[in-house]
């Protein structure tokens, strides 16, 4: 009967808790009168009976004194009573138990002293939340408890009780014990909240504290995801877990010994399984047959496993599967028929054959499936008309013909990664919806391929790293935002027109000579160490920063590009460090704020007409002979580092400090700096 009561109450616990907390503040005054009237505090009456169940009935009626509770079901009172018992349980050994016994006993004897009355008031109010504190193990537990308690109660008359009171007071523990009761009120609700912040290891550890904690820590909410990754779990242990948590939705068995029987167990016993991760080992064909019975499975990931005996065809037929990953699996042939499948990865798997029947698939990853033939790739991809993303990198046998078929059937293809596919040239491939195209290390990609790319007028990202035969790129794509050209050994000419281009990554293209960029979105252009670069043409109305460090072939004409009228009307920062071919630099710009010419050793003449220029770096320009700063916005200037300075004109209305120490051969100087305060 008691178990039933507890269980029954458990389901209603939230409502009641709520109810109680709503009422308590209003009923606060009533509570104080309770202990005097409430026979529940007379423990002896309850325990002396010996039979636990028997006194419960009358008591249940008696506890109805508790105002509002009267209206509730009787179970509630029974539990309230049993929760009072728990206080004893927690303190039953030695002195503690005596102490608690005492408090409770005395409060039952009406208010003999005011102090004790207060104590009992406290007890009542503090214990009331304890209504929720019980565990399913309780029943069993209670019986043991009563055995302990009965003799105590029989032996303890009034006289011995007062003796005990004295003893407790002497040790000064009395008040502490009461506080303790308050603190102990981590009810199951609170415990549940605290436990929700613990991981599985911590929960297991918490279970070894006591029975209440074990019950709280094994709540299903915490055990929906069972992660056994790399754990040495045995079949029996796993079976036990499946039995304890039949509503688990996510299981990870990657790296466990003997995955096949565990996986079979999981699919057969967990009806709510939604996601399963397996790996390392061998999975028999029977697993894939059993899979069909796992009706709500949505995600299956198998990593680094041998499927079947390695030579048979593995059928994966499932009606609700949305995501399937067979990564690095050893298998000869897979046949996948999953009408709801949206994402499929066969990455690094070894099968030479794959048959797909997945009409809703939109994401297919067959990267590094080395053995997959051109024809197999074609038939797999063209079976998925809604495909939006295709990763076929490292599928070295893919041909242009396959790409043409894919382009025709998969009209929605937006993302294509065909990196390391040496045979493709994109000849007459029309991928009109494409937004991302990655073609790293494709030796078939040449300047002629750009004609095909030009048809992808939606293209936003283009990556052409390591395309070693590519010599020129000339594209006019209105949406292009991001282009990469790294390590293109024969690349000479870049010509881009795109209103949205915002990122250009060009590096290690040793032959690159000409760059022509038209973009209204570009804000920063970095082209370091392009040692053949000679010509730059920019029409970038929003370009703010340019860094051309170590472009050693740049000639004097570059200065026109960055002067007024050169196509960069708002350029603020220009770095031309170590451009050693520059001899005459002349900038006339109303936007330039910072200019660096450090390490331009060949520079002889510098003419700046940049009224807002605030920073200039001329470190290492030790051949500079003629310099004209008319006008500049500089506040300070040190030309002591230019020992060959001969002719100097400065017109700097803001200049406060000028240093010419070390310019020993200066023969002509005109300095117009009205605010100059320091001159060396």
């Amino acid at each position: 009967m008691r178990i039933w009561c507890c269980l029954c109450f458990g389901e209603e616990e939230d409502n009641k808790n709520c109810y109680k907390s709503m009422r308590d503040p209003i009923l606060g005054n009533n509570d104080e009168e309770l202990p005097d009237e409430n026979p529940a505090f007379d423990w002896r009456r309850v325990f002396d009976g010996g039979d636990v169940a028997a006194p419960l009935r009358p008591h249940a009626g008696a506890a109805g004194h508790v105002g509002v509770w009267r209206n509730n079901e009787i179970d509630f009172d029974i539990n309230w009573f049993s929760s009072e018992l728990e206080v004893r349980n927690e303190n039953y050994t030695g002195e503690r138990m005596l102490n608690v016994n005492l408090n409770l006993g005395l409060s039952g004897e009406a208010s003999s002293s005011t102090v004790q009355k207060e104590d009992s008031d406290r007890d009542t109010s503090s214990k009331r939340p304890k209504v929720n504190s019980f565990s399913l193990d309780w029943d069993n537990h209670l019986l043991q408890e009563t055995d302990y308690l009965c003799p105590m109660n029989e032996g303890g008359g009034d006289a011995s009780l007062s003796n005990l009171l004295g003893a407790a007071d002497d040790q000064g523990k009395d008040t502490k014990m009461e506080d303790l009761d308050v603190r102990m009120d981590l009810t199951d609700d609170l415990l549940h909240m605290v436990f929700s912040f613990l991981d599985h290891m911590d929960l297991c550890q918490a279970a070894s504290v006591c029975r209440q904690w074990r019950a709280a820590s094994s709540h299903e909410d915490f055990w929906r995801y069972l992660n056994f990754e790399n754990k040495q779990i045995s079949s029996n242990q796993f079976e036990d877990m499946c039995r304890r948590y039949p509503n688990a939705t996510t299981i990870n068995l990657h790296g466990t010994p003997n995955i096949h029987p565990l996986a079979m167990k999981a699919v057969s016993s967990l009806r709510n399984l939604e996601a399963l991760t397996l790996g390392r080992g061998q999975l028999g064909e029977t697993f894939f047959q059993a899979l069909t019975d796992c009706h709500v499975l949505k995600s299956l990931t198998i990593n680094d496993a041998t499927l079947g005996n390695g030579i048979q065809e593995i059928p994966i037929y499932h009606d609700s599967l949305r995501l399937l990953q067979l990564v690095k699996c050893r298998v000869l042939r897979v046949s996948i028929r999953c009408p709801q499948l949206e994402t499929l990865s066969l990455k690094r798997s070894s099968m030479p054959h794959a048959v797909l029947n997945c009409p809703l698939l939109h994401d297919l990853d067959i990267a590094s499936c080395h053995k997959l033939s051109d024809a197999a790739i074609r038939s797999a991809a063209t079976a998925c008309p809604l495909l939006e993303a295709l990763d076929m990198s490292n599928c070295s046998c893919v041909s242009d013909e396959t790409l043409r078929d894919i382009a025709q059937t998969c009209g929605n293809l937006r993302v294509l990664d065909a990196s390391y596919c040496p045979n493709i040239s994109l000849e007459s491939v029309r991928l009109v919806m494409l937004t991302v195209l990655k073609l790293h290390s494709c030796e078939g990609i040449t300047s002629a391929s750009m004609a095909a790319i030009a048809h992808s007028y939606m293209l936003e990202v283009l990556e052409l790293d390591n395309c070693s035969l590519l010599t020129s790129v000339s594209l006019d794509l209105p949406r292009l935002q991001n282009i990469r050209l790294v390590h293109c050994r024969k690349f000479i000419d870049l010509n881009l027109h795109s209103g949205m281009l915002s990122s250009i990554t060009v590096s290690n293209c040793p032959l690159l000579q000409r760059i022509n960029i038209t973009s209204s979105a570009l804000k920063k252009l970095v082209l370091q160490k392009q040692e053949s670069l000679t010509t730059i043409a920019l029409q970038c109305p929003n370009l703010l920063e340019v860094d051309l460090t170590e472009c050693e072939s740049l000639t004097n004409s570059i200065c026109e590009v960055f002067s007024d009228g050169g196509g960069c009307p708002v350029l603020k920062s220009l770095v031309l460090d170590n451009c050693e071919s520059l001899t005459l630099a002349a900038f006339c710009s109303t936007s330039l704020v910072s200019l660096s010419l450090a390490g331009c050793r060949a520079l002889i003449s510098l003419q700046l007409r940049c009224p807002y220029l605030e920073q200039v770096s001329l470190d290492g320009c030790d051949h500079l002979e003629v310099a004209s700063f008319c006008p500049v916005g500089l506040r300070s200037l040190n030309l002591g580092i230019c020992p060959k300075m001969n002719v100097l004109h400065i017109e700097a209305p803001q200049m406060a400090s000028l240093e010419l120490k070390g310019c020993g051969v200066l023969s002509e100087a005109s300095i117009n700096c009205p605010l100059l305060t320091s001159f060396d």
Partner: protein
Amino acid sequence: MASTTETKQKKMLILKSADNDEFEIEESVGVQSETIKNLVEDGFTFVPLPNVYTKALIKIIDYLKKHANKTDSNDEEIKTFDKDFVNTTFDDLFELVSAANYLHISCLMNMLCQTIADRIKDKSPEAVRKIFHINCDYTPEEEAKIRKANAQAFEGQFDESLD
């Protein structure tokens, strides 16, 4: 204590703790507690809190005041405050968490539960029992069994300290 003019402008509430101390706070501060909010909506301006003792109530009012003035700019300040707030003894934490639970202040509840969880994480069962004043109700055989089951899982050393 707010001056009379301010009292007129801002609605005030009186909270009464379990030890009969009374506290006056602005309504806007108090209603962060669901329990108080419900009472305020029913027209109460005097709120007895028979389950919350003065000591915890003072801390909680501090917290509510701090969090009532939350803006983007004092985000760091509140974080520091919260950190100090939970940097206290277990016993204080338990009292606070019971009070916060009773008052239904969910952000405070989360913070306190997270703190308690973090602090018991690496403790041995014995230390946890002492902290929570729990007597082990397992039989020695049961405990040995649980220990054995957990033995595989725990290789690390437990923290035996009680704070």
